[in-house]
């Protein structure tokens, strides 16, 4: 059984910090299908459209009929462990830091046998539930879980390399002035985060929820470079998860604005703000990506699903979201081994979507989704019916979605 992970110990200042090395990361374009599925927490493999054979490893032609049409489909995740081995010596620098490391071969119920990392509670010859996870390189890998949940299984050493459990970690929620940041801070406290810092800009301006704010309030205005750098100087080395909850939603298309003043404010909050956060907090978080039992692990962006394609009634806002999404994709490359989690949301249940009919995303629902994503190691999620629908239509055909939304 997994041993319960004790809370983080204070670091011995005389010992060097473990470097944030990455596991091997090169993949073929085809194999990146595993990564895309892992990022969404789906167990998907290529399935031959002609004969139905499930494929592994990813390939260009069906192993059974040589058919070339091999779409990625969710497949049954059950299987049996048929062989296991414990790696004790390896030339790979990342795994050398982490030996012994258990791997095994799992015969999947859906056909193929796969090489997988093994959760500590997987027993020889036992049933397993196969999952696709992102490793510290951000690549999709197989992780076999025990057939049934076990107590404290979240604390397994190998599994923790692929998840971002907030328990015992310190979290910076960048904006506590809105209900979404407030719910996020509350949720992290409830799941046992070791500390929750909540940024508040313009402290001279009262705001709703101020009296009930959970967590330790810190001054932070992500539109002010100096403010971001001052906080990073005092807090940067004491944060393992950063959640950017700064929202700046204003309705309006391009023509009815008449100026770029509001758009500039939107860009400051939505695009330059995360850039400032990344420049100030990114390097130190990344450098602590393998530090101790609770290393820095995640960078969370809350983005509108209209970043994928704009709805004209929020056209200017959507453009800033597209910029922020692009920034987030680049951050993934630069912040590894950190996980960059992009939570795409539909219309929020706030004062700026008064004219938008339900369903709308409530603060507690967003917080719960983000927490689930962190614990499961998910990097791409869509929160709420509208965001999920937009994402599905975007995957189907991005051009069609843009046309559909433009048609109103």
């Amino acid at each position, binding site marked *: 059984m997994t041993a319960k992970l004790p809370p983080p110990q204070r670091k011995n200042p005389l010992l060097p910090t473990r470097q944030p090395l990455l596991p091997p990361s090169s993949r073929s374009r085809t194999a990146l299908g595993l990564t895309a599925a892992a990022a969404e927490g789906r167990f998907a493999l290529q399935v031959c459209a002609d004969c139905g054979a499930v494929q592994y490893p990813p390939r260009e032609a069906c192993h059974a009929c040589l058919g070339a049409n091999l779409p990625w489909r969710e497949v049954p995740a059950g299987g049996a462990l048929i062989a296991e081995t414990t790696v004790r010596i390896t030339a790979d620098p990342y795994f050398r830091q982490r030996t012994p490391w258990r791997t095994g071969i799992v015969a999947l119920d859906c056909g193929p046998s796969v090489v997988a990392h093994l959760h500590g509670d997987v027993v020889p010859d036992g049933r397993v539930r196969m999952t696709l996870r992102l490793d510290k390189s951000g690549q999709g890998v197989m992780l076999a879980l025990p057939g049934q949940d076990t107590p404290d299984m979240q604390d397994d050493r190998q599994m923790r390399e692929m998840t971002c459990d907030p328990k015992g970690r310190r979290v910076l929620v960048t904006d506590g002035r809105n209900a979404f940041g407030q719910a996020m801070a509350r949720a992290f406290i409830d799941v046992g985060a070791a500390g929750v810092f909540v940024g508040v800009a*313009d402290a001279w301006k*009262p705001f709703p929820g101020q009296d009930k704010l959970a967590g330790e309030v810190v001054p932070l205005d992500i539109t002010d470079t100096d403010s971001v750098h001052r906080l990073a100087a005092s807090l940067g080395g004491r944060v393992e998860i950063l959640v950017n909850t700064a929202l700046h939603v204003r309705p309006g298309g391009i023509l009815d604005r008449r100026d770029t003043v509001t758009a*500039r404010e939107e860009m400051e909050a939505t695009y330059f703000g995360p850039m400032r956060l990344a420049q100030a907090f990114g390097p130190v978080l990344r450098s602590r990506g393998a530090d101790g039992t609770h290393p820095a692990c995640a960078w969370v962006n809350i983005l509108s699903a209209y970043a994928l394609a704009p709805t004209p009634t929020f056209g200017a806002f959507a453009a800033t979201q597209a910029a922020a999404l692009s920034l987030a994709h680049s951050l993934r490359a630069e912040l590894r081994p950190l996980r960059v989690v992009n939570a795409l949301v539909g219309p929020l249940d706030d004062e700026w979507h008064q004219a938008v009919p339900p369903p709308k995303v409530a603060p507690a629902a967003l917080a719960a989704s983000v927490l689930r994503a962190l614990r499961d190691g998910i990097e791409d999620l869509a929160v709420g019916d509208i965001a999920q629908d937009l994402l599905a239509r975007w995957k189907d055909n991005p051009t069609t979605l843009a046309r559909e939304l433009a048609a109103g």
Partner: protein
Amino acid sequence: MTQLAAFAAELLAGRIKVIDLTQTLSPEFPTIALPPEFGQCAPFRLEEISRYDSRGPAWYWNNFSCGEHTGTHFDAPIHWVSGKDLANNTTDTIPAQNFIAPACVIDCAREAAANADFVLTVAVIEAWEAKHGRIPAGNWVFLRTDWSKKSGAAYANLQADGAHTPGPDPEAVRFLVEQRDVLGFGVETIGTDAGQAHHFTPPYPAHFYMHGKGRYGLQCLANLDRLPPTGALIVSPPLKIKGGSGSPLRVLALVAS
């Protein structure tokens, strides 16, 4: 000795003191709070271009951004709709002669400390004149409240029903403009009008009447407690922004010691 040479000699000898009436331009300094659906005045922001580093090895400099009405700032007549059609109503066309003028300082610090909604009335002005003499034409009138000694939330003093800060009532502004022909009106608070002046008739009377008659405003002043009731000379040229409605500026007072 010419008058200017005599003035310069007094200045060099330290017998004329220069008092800085300006708040430091910083990102944290409150700006006017309007309902969020209105266009907003940008707060002060500073972005470093280089600091003796790879971006510029031997020099340090910044880009800054802000609104025309950020920090200690000057209001030109065109700022208000009542002054929109006047001649020479913008920062670049106001006669430079008007940027140096004497000031009368009405001390209401005690009243403002007791009541954040303190309103300057004609009676208060007349009581001041009984002690210090009639306000001369072409003078600034500064309302001293010691509000500049507050900071952050206490300075903005925003409640659920809006800001609560002192300012003049409509009759007092009309009196200063029509009966005393003042150059303008200066305050220590974020606006020349009281925090609740949107409930006055007309709303924002200091803006409405002062700018309607081509007079100026100075806001977010500091150190008014170091000025005499009369006799201070104010130097307050705004930036020469083309068509500007106002500008942040350095405000200096010359005071004989």
